[in-house]
């Protein structure tokens, strides 16, 4: 348990993707099978314990600590698991606490200082406890098989035996929220890094595997066979597209390509199989292979085909596709209520077929797959939440440019608001995992843009640590005040980053912890051209609006801040988009309610979307 705790402790602070992979792979290399398997289960979100709730943790700590001290501590720390992990009292020792503050820590463990260190309290309490070697697999076994009545005492016993990091890890495990910036895909990538496999190799066998994954590790390390998965509905790695630049377009022949609308939803893969006895299995996967069937039971139930379909998850109301803002209200919900299902009916707009019946058709060209997909949809019950993404006819790039500019009159009709560009797929393209360059292109519609004034800056992480690379920007209200409307941390070049960084350092007017406020007056300040994909109403932001995927498009050194855009401009755009409800659930998974968690969840949403 303590090695696992040390791992997630370190992961929580590691900003780099490659650093995380190395930490996880290093752990897998040095930890025996049973434990590393359960660790992999924890990292991939494959664990859940029904009976442990925050209320139980509060109850346990209330029985053990002074309520005033707990309240002061919780207020200071801001996170329940962490507060409890830190405050958890040491179990009663045979001898009472010494009245003398005797020197107690074996610091500088050289021979000289050892002589100074009295016996008994030579180490911190955690290290002195006897049961540090408690295996993660035992902890998980205990938690899994524990009834509601035994749980409090067993959990308290575990907490007594662990050190602070161990307690924190255990409480994070049982509340089901590790939140250490590790996706299932990343954990699988670390497994692949143990040997010569690719992450996609792991994905192919993954859905048929269960913890503790001994056969997977044996295979990854090159001393076992590829696991034979019995799973009839495995995830198949998705095919991704490259963004289309003008230069690319000139070199491409329109006759080689088919075009589809690029839908503003999230990528979904639906696999359904029927066994000899007529029993069916349906699985819905995100583009990273995460099983999201549980979040969309209405959709999983409605599907009736046999095979595997690639498409876009959308919300349809009265047969009309809703905007991404609406879809977002159904995403990231822990509980799927009947109300949620009724108000946000999920739907798949299909654009590719990977398996037809039981036949894998990924090695067929696009046109052939498309014909089979059309046939499959044609025989599918019409009320069943599955339809076909139409092809966009075009003969020249000019025609496609016109369609992209105005989807409404080029076949998308009332769904045009949910179109964010077009996809180009070579008619002869096979369905290949990953992002091969050439067969598929995404040609997104031009983003919205606004000229905003830089107001606050914060330092970034990883390569950018020490540079001010996270920017909060604002637009003018009718009262002539700047109000923040968003935060962006990419879009600029490395050279521009250095310029902005210098500007921030030289024009700081105030500091709030790590945040610098920079000069932003009508005649002094930096105007940023911010590109974004959409707007939503937000009660979280003082401006009342929230941008989707804002990024810095250009630095407008030439423009005085007074000439930046106004809130009225954004509100007008909001009206043309249709009034949509707040996006305030986007950050609902955030720990501690801080705004710091929002970018992460947005990035996650973006990751899931950047699919087609």
């Amino acid at each position, binding site marked *: 348990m303590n090695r696992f705790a040390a791992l997630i402790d370190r992961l929580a*602070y590691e900003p780099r993707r490659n650093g995380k992979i190395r930490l996880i792979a290093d752990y897998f290399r040095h930890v025996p099978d049973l434990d590393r398997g359960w660790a992999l289960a924890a990292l991939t979100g494959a664990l859940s314990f029904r009976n442990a709730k925050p209320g139980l943790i509060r109850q346990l700590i209330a029985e053990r600590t002074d309520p005033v001290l707990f309240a002061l501590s919780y207020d200071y720390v801001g996170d329940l698991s962490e507060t409890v992990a830190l405050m958890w009292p040491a179990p009663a020792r045979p001898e009472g606490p010494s009245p003398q503050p005797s*020197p107690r820590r074996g610091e500088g463990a050289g021979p000289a200082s050892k002589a100074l260190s009295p016996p008994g309290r030579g180490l911190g309490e955690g290290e002195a406890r006897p049961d540090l070697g408690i295996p993660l697999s035992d902890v998980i076994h205990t938690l899994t098989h524990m009834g509601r009545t035994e749980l409090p005492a067993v959990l308290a016993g575990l907490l007594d035996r662990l050190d602070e990091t161990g307690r924190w890890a255990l409480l994070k495990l049982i509340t089901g929220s590790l939140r250490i910036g590790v996706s299932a895909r990343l954990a699988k990538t670390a497994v692949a890094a143990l040997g010569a496999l690719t992450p996609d190799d792991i994905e192919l066998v993954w859905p048929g595997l269960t913890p503790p994954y001994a056969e997977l590790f044996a295979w990854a390390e090159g001393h076992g066979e590829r696991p034979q998965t019995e799973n009839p509905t495995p995830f198949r790695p998705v095919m991704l597209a490259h963004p289309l630049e003008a230069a690319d377009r000139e070199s491409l022949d329109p006759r080689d390509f088919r075009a589809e609308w690029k839908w503003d939803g999230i990528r979904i893969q639906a696999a359904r199989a029927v066994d000899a006895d007529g029993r069916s299995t349906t699985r819905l996967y995100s583009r990273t292979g995460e099983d999201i069937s549980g979040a969309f039971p209405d959709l999983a139930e409605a599907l009736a085909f046999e095979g595997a379909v690639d498409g876009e998850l959308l919300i349809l109301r009265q047969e009309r596709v809703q905007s991404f803002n609406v879809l977002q209200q159904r995403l990231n919900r822990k509980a799927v209520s009947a109300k949620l299902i009724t108000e946000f009916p999920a739907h798949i707009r299909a654009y590719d077929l990977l398996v037809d019946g039981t036949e894998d058709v990924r090695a067929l060209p696009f046109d052939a797959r498309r014909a089979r997909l059309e046939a499959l949809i044609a025989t599918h019950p019409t009320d069943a939440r599955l339809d076909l993404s139409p092809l966009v006819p075009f003969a020249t790039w000019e025609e496609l440019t016109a369609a992209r500019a105005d989807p409404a009159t080029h076949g998308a009709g009332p769904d045009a608001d949910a179109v964010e560009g077009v996809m180009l797929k070579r008619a002869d393209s096979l369905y290949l995992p990953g992002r091969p360059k050439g067969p598929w292109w995404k040609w997104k519609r031009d983003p919205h843009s606004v000229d905003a004034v830089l107001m606050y800056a914060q330092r970034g992480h990883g390569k950018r640590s020490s540079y001010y690379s996270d920017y909060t920007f604002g637009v003018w209200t009718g009262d002539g005040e700047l109000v923040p409307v968003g935060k962006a941390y990419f879009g600029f070049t490395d050279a521009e980053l250095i310029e902005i960084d210098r500007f921030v350092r030289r024009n700081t007017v105030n500091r709030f912890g*790590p945040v610098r406020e920079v000069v932003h007056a009508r005649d002094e300040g930096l105007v940023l051209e911010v590109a974004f994909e959409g707007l939503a109403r937000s009660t979280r932001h003082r401006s009342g609006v929230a941008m989707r995927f804002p990024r810095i498009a250009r630095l407008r050194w030439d423009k005085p801040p007074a000439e930046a855009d106004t809130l009225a401009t954004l509100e007008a755009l909001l009206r043309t988009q249709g009034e949509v409800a707040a996006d305030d659930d986007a950050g609902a998974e955030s720990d501690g309610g801080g705004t710091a968690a929002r970018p992460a969840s947005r990035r996650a949403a973006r990751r899931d979307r950047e699919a087609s």
Partner: protein
Amino acid sequence: MRSAMRPEDLLRPTPRGLYSPAGDFFIDPVRPVPRALITHGHSDHARAGHGAVLATRQTLDIMAIRYGADFAGDTQAIAYGESVEVNGVKASFFPAGHILGSAQIRVEKNGCRIVASGDYKPGIDPTCVPFEPIGCDVFISEATFGLPVFRHPDPAGEIGKLVASLQLFPERTHIIGAYALGKAQRVIALLRAAGHDRPILLHGAMERLTAYYESEGIALGPVKLAREATPDELPGAVVIAPPSSLAEVWSRRFADPVTAFASGWMRIRARARQHGVELPLVISDHADWDDLQHAILATGCGELWVTHGQEDALVHWAGQAGLTARPLHLVGYGEEEAESGDAPATGKASGDAPAEGKPS
């Protein structure tokens, strides 16, 4: 027969710091005063410009290094265990275990004894003389880590995390944020005890203080200035720098560094993340929650005055322990070590960010 002295006539809080009406002197004044008794050399306690300063020899040396030889009109050195009379008040200095030269100051007159402990920590620190509990009627304590969430782990274990990271990332420079006075030298000593024998690279801000520790007989092994290191020395090297420089231009010279920070604040994850720290090392020169309680009880005091930090929790505990306790609400302490050009900012990033406290 003189009646017993009231504690408030012996020592009381004022805007300039703790003042003794009976002896007409200040302890750790935050503004220039005619006569100051100084507990230790950190810049929030030891300021330049006083008329006369009474402190340990090491504290006077440190002040001279930081402020120049003429930092005060007159100086007087006092050793641990010694006493002097200041206008009829007896002042005695005892080890505080915080940094080299740090002292608790006991003042007494007419049977009333007050110990102003400054910043202190019980336990073993190879870079300074250990804290001793001193009997008194009133004990004045800091409460920097006065919450039950602060229980400092074994520092050797924390250094073990650094050693493990050096093994995992042998090509990356490990920059450790540590205050230039005390913490930097302690971290070096801990690394040496853990068997790390490579030269340790220093930020310029800690060069003279580190040399001073060496001259006081504290062996720190080979050190050199980071700016004089050749590129081939950087992979896997340990660099010690003021915390404020971690995220500054200074740190850009190191390729792909691991950012560590040695501080008691690193106990709180959000605090570590706010500083962009990848490798938090919970190493503190202050008493933790348990230390505070043990130290206070060991003095046998009947009354506790709390200077700075998390005074609410400590006062609450003291009340339950049967002590008369009150916060002094002194200002000017524990805010920051303003020792390195661009010190960390103070203030609140947002409603849910914990307030910045003493970076220690």
